[in-house]
Structure formats: structure tokens, C-alpha cells
């Protein structure tokens, strides 16, 4: 396949874009703050629906956690690309003599870091507020969150990037993203629920391997379509 030099250039380009996104975000911290508070608001709203007689209903913590991740992920994706659109920088990126897949990988890594940072706040919050034993199997939890978020962000980055030029992109992003990422959401919710159960280790590991498989499929498809979709 590709020569080692090509791979090095690919990674260097991707890293440049990720670093740029981190730097821009670090200066204002706009997306991370608003997204964390949005996710916390989601949890608050869920609490009124899923807490009965002062106790959360069974397995609800994993569902709340993943819905909050999906919702706040959509917001972070939309905001990240809105920033690019507003400054007309995505067009500049597309004109740059860089591989399209490398640009995609760079944006994906930035989104992934952002979502993982939000999850770092979200997980303890859900564990605390819903008395959920989320940390019963910490390694499995990290594996589930990491692989699930990667799958979600892989599709999300592709769709958010291609919707930059479209009208009504704010509503079209979730409309396109949620049905397509259903496998990731199912695996994430059920895997997390299994990881919280006393004897669910085996099941949770099965869900992790399924998520890794989805990641491979979604990443391959996204890398493949990104160039074709982003070309005028």
C-alpha cells in the first residue's frame, strides 16, 4: 500500500489540523463550556422522566449517558463546523495541497478529543446523580466510551463537514446522523449496562468488540466517501 513517507505526511497533516482546532478552542473554550452545560441540562431533563419514587429505574443510567453523549456530540459537531463556515476556512482547507482523507482525520481527532473531554465530566455526573455503578469495570467503561465515541464521531465528522454548505444544516445533521449511528448507540447503551451488572463482563466485552468492528467499517466508509462528497 502506501509508502512510509506518505503515511508520515498523512499523520503530519492530520496533526496540524487537530492542533489548529485545539488552539482555536483553547483560546475561547466556547464549544467545550457550552457543550458540557448542554449535556448537564439534558441529564437534568431526563431525571424528571426516569426517576420514580426518588429512585432511578433500572439500567437507565447507561441510556441517559449515551443520549447525552449523542446530543452533545451533535452540538459540538455543528459548532465546530459552523466556526469553519463562518470564517470560510473550510474552503481554504479544501484548497490547500493536502490529502482530503488527512483533513478528515484531523477534524475527526479534534472532535473526538472534544467529546471525550465532555464525557470526562458527564460520566462522574451520571454515576453520582443516578447512583450508577459505572466504575465497576473501569477498563471496560473506557473501552466502551472510546470505541463508541469514535464510531459516532467518524460518521458525524463526515456528515457535519458535508453539510457545511447545505441549507438547514442544523436540523439535517441530527436527522441524518441518528438513524445511521443506531448500531453504535445500541452497542454503547447495552455494553455500558452490561459493564454495570455484577456478572456482565463477558457481555460487555462482546459489545466492545462489536463497537471496534463498527469503528473500522464507519471509518473506512467515511475516508472513502469524504473526498468524493467534498469535491465540487
Amino acid at each position, binding site marked *: 500500500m502506501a509508502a512510509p513517507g506518505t503515511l508520515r505526511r498523512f499523520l503530519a497533516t492530520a496533526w496540524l489540523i487537530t492542533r489548529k482546532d485545539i488552539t482555536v478552542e483553547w483560546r475561547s473554550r466556547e464549544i467545550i463550556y457550552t457543550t458540557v452545560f448542554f449535556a448537564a441540562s439534558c441529564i437534568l431533563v431526563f431525571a424528571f422522566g426516569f426517576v420514580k419514587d426518588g429512585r432511578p429505574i433500572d439500567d437507565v443510567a447507561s441510556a441517559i449517558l449515551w443520549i447525552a453523549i449523542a446530543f452533545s456530540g451533535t452540538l459540538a459537531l455543528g459548532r465546530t463546523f459552523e466556526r469553519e463556515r463562518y470564517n470560510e476556512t473550510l474552503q481554504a482547507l479544501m484548497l490547500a495541497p493536502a490529502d482530503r482523507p488527512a483533513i478528515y482525520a484531523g477534524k475527526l481527532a479534534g472532535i473526538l478529543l472534544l467529546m471525550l473531554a465532555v464525557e470526562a465530566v458527564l460520566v462522574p455526573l451520571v454515576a453520582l446523580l443516578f447512583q450508577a455503578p459505572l466504575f465497576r469495570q473501569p477498563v471496560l467503561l473506557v473501552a466502551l466510551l472510546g470505541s463508541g465515541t469514535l464510531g459516532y464521531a467518524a*460518521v458525524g465528522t*463526515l*456528515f457535519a463537514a*458535508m*453539510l457545511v*454548505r*447545505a*441549507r*438547514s*444544516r442544523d436540523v*439535517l445533521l441530527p*436527522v*441524518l446522523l441518528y*438513524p*445511521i449511528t*443506531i*448500531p453504535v448507540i*445500541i*452497542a454503547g447503551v*447495552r455494553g455500558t449496562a452490561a459493564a454495570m451488572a455484577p456478572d456482565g463482563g463477558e*457481555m460487555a466485552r*462482546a459489545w466492545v468488540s*462489536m463497537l471496534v468492528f*463498527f469503528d473500522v*467499517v464507519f471509518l473506512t*466508509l467515511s475516508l472513502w*466517501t469524504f473526498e*468524493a*462528497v467534498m469535491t*465540487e
Partner: protein
Amino acid sequence: MLKRLFVPALFVAAVMLAVSPLLVARAPLETTMGLVQKIFYYHVPSAMVMFLAAFVCGIASAVYLFGRRPGADRVAVAAAEVVVLFGIIVLVTGPLWARKAWGVWWQWDARLTSTLVLWMIFNAYLLLRKYGGPGSDRLAAGVALFGMANVPFVYWSVNVWRTLHPKTSVVMTLDPAMRPAFWWCVTAFVCLFLAVLAARVRLEEERTRLEELYLQLDD
């Protein structure tokens, strides 16, 4: 090719669909479900056409995206509308049967859920095309490609999710005496699909030509 298919496909579909109630009525009654099972003769062919159309849309989108042939895009949008149309038939006839057979309108079973998700994806495809503004045909092609590739994974994941909570459901094995009526209906629906697809592709072609004429007028 599609254009020449329109008249024969429409004719065959019309004749076969007109005759189909007789065959369906004459097919033996299912022992446990009785009369409600008859809906199966229209429900299953609709579902088959829905998945066939989704497949056609995905392939046509890939051809459009990577081969840059405008004709493929017209087939893709026509097929996507057929997915949504036949999806409505499937999602209406299914619950009608389920209410009698299972006692509930809806079950979160693998097949039901994946059909619903597929239907949602193609609705999203059409929404994107309608409201996405200029250039959304290419984006929609990407969505269709993803949507088609996603179907087996949705089915698989829902299946694993459901097998975690097993429940008895009605398993249907087809009685040989029911087969003629069933395959008759499948053929009729496939012909109807071809006729609708051909008509829709032609409409899209005329629309493209009209737009080109308008552009020439402006110049």
C-alpha cells in the same frame, strides 16, 4: 432501458394485482392466525420491493458519486422515493397484523426496528435533497451509500440487543399451498416497482431538461 419497461411493467402489474385478491382468497387459511394472515401477501412483497429499491438507490448513488453520471442520480432519487412509499405500506400493514397476532401494534424486534431505521434513513435522504439547497444531490448520494451499507449492521445490532431479552414470536413457515399466491403477489409488486421507478426517472429527466431550457433562455 427503463423507459421501454414502463408500459409492459405497468400492464403486468395492473393485471396481476387485479387478479391477486382471488388467489389470496383461495389460498388456504393459516391454522392459528386465520384471516389476518392474508395481509402477508401484500406486506412481504412490499417489504421486498422496499429493500430492493434501497439497494438500487445505494448502487446508483455510488455510481453517481464515483462515476459522476447524472443519470445515476435520477435513478437514485426515484428509488429513494419508492423506498419511502413502499416503506409506508410495510409499516402500516405490519402493525395491522401485529395487533391481531401479538396483541400489540409494535414490537422492538430486529426486523421491525431495522425496517423502521432504513425508512428513516431514506426519509432523511429525501429531506436533505429537498431542503439542503444547491449541491445537496452529492451529499445525499453519500448518505444513501452509508444508509445501504448500514442496513446489515442495524439488523445485526438490534438482533443481539433483542436476543439479550428473548421472547417468543410467531415464526412463519410457508405452506406449499400458499406459495403460488405469494409469488404471484411478489411478481406483481416487482412489476409495479419497475413501472413506478420508470415513471419517476422520466419525470426527473423532464425536469432536468426543463431547467436546461430555462438556463438557455436566460443566456
